[in-house]
């Protein structure tokens, strides 16, 4: 692995950590009371609205570790004299942040506030549903961008470019809703199912199962591809145009090679490098895209888990999701670095 990659990793890990810590501290510090499972409190609250409820709440806060001080030092109001100025106080390691970090280092993300399930299982379960969608979209979008950038006739390119730059700027959920309204609507064209993943009959043959799965996957996949392809294609196009303006391309043309041959055999290889930089951002961007797509099409998955956690202020799930995304970005960087070396022999370590 190149020194370039290590520099990136060295920068990325602490920054991701800082962002995560910031969100953690803000979520515990600002969000006055996280929406704890309040069933118990409500049931008791009917009989005695004040004292018992407060005791229950206190118990809940203790169980989730929310009664400890937030950070190593916090501002504390003096108990003896509440009107006096607040002071900074050192708490040592008995604080929420420290125990959170200790939990994380053991791989324990805590429990969801909403349904008390362990966060790890919630996320792993949702990742299983999301990965086919994102990886499929990444492969399709890359292939499509390559096809559009390389194999289109010059005559069509101007029109194509303006269509792509329009698509590039539309918000994802607008595209998703339009597709939903046009292609999964009994009033217009009911070609595709509108919601969910489809119930797969267990006795069906494997290709029937796969068919149902793909049938339900088609529209969400199309949304992600439609939204991500334009950026990729435009980038590749710009890189190709730059390379075709270089002297070696002119030489190749002067030698008598056809334009398409110069493009595919000579320019493309060099245009790969800036294109790869965009590819590194693709996978994290796609996972972010599933936030919208899975909400619109009501599919279980990582994106919907994140969106629902944000709407319901379920911070353990939200934080773990953010951490997972940072990890995915790291993985994407490592993958891209490897692809860089594949594309450009000069970047390979001397053996």
């Amino acid at each position: 692995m190149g020194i370039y990659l290590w520099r990136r990793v060295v920068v990325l890990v602490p920054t991701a950590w800082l962002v995560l810590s910031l969100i953690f501290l803000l979520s515990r510090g600002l969000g006055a009371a996280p929406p704890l499972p309040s069933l118990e409190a409500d049931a008791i609250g009917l009989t005695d609205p004040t004292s018992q409820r407060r005791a229950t709440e206190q118990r809940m806060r203790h169980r989730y570790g929310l009664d400890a001080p937030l950070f190593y030092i916090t501002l504390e109001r003096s108990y003896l004299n509440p009107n006096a100025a607040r002071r900074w106080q050192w708490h040592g390691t008995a604080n929420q942040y420290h125990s959170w970090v200790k939990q994380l280092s053991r791989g324990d993300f805590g429990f969801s506030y909403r349904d008390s399930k362990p966060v790890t299982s919630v996320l792993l379960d949702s990742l299983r549903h999301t990965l086919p969608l994102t990886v499929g979209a990444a492969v399709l979008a890359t292939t499509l961008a390559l096809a559009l950038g390389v194999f289109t006739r010059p005559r069509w390119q101007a029109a194509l470019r303006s269509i792509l730059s329009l698509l590039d700027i539309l918000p994802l959920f607008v595209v998703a809703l339009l597709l939903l309204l046009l292609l999964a609507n009994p009033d217009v064209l009911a070609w595709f199912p509108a919601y969910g993943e489809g119930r797969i009959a267990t006795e069906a043959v494997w290709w029937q199962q796969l068919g149902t799965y793909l049938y339900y996957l088609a529209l969400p996949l199309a949304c992600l591809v439609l939204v991500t392809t334009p950026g990729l294609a435009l980038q590749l196009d710009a890189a190709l145009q730059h390379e075709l303006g270089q002297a070696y391309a002119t030489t190749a043309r002067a030698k008598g090679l056809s334009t398409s041959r110069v493009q595919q055999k000579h320019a493309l290889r060099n245009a790969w490098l800036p294109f790869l930089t965009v590819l590194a951002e693709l996978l994290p961007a796609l996972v972010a895209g599933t936030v919208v797509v899975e909400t619109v099409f009501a599919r279980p998955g990582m994106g919907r888990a994140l969106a629902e956690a944000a709407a319901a202020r379920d911070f353990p799930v939200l934080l773990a999701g953010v951490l997972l995304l940072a990890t995915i970005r790291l993985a994407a960087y490592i993958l891209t670095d490897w692809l860089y070396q594949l594309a450009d022999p000069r970047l390979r370590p001397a053996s």
Partner: protein
Amino acid sequence: MTRARRWGAGLALTWLLLLLAVALTVPYLPLAFSPDTVDLTNIAMPPQVSQFSHPGHLLGTDPYGRDVLTALLYGTRTALLVSLPAALLAALAGISSGSSAGFWGNSGLRVKTGWLVAAGAAVLFTLAALPCYWGSYRMLYLLAIPTGFFMVGGILLQVKRLSAPVPIPLDSLLQACITLVSSIPRLVLVLALAAVVEPSLPTLVLVLALSSWVGTARLVRAEVARVRQLPYLEAARAAGIPELRLLVRHVLPNALRPVKTSFPLSIAGLIGLETTLSFLGVGLPPEVPSWGRTLALVRLTPTAWWLVVFPVLLILLTTLALQQLASRPRG
């Protein structure tokens, strides 16, 4: 400029001005319904023709019986109130940070060590003391900090080693900040931050600005670094113009050209982001009308095409107009 392009630019500008006018005057418009009127006899009604005797819902109603036209007009106001200040804040932050990083780089700005130490101490002291004294008369104590800064700095400068100037790595600092903001995809960062803070207009504007200054900063940094090398700057420097004036009066006017293109696009992006957040139910309180909120209601009534078509049309036209404005060739 061809005739078609001029037409396009004129149309785009007209549309944007119309939006602005609606946003400014919407409380005074003669609308038949107020934004929080709930018409329970007309729930999720398709668009109907208004009659002279009793007003109808021209663009239909949502599943709660609110008028879609009114919601969209008030939503225009929300969209502009969120995206314009956020875009301006982001542009301002991006231009100031990007230009100083591009102009001075890692070694251009030198400050005497004594002043640096004194400034660091002053900032630390303010950060530690401000929350303690916040809201009481003791805040007046903080007035002593600037005096202390000059005194401590002056004393420290007497020491020989502390009076040597050290370079401030502005460029590396900016790069670190950019990595910090962009270590997580933008939508997820905004989603997480918006979920954490209390949902309100000012906090949303801050969160959006925080996540979107990066692009402008990158653009301006690259452009300033390019302009800095040009011969006319050498001439200006030789004429003895001070550094800050050089940056503001001579470099920036030439370096802001890419920002003029990116600014309308960033507004479009922010409108998209705001509607996405409202669509997901994060960011703004649920009683604030917005395009995204109206769009989100289609999930309750999947066949209500009027809940999708009209907001999408608004977003589409606005985005197109802003894009047209950005791609206009500068004469």
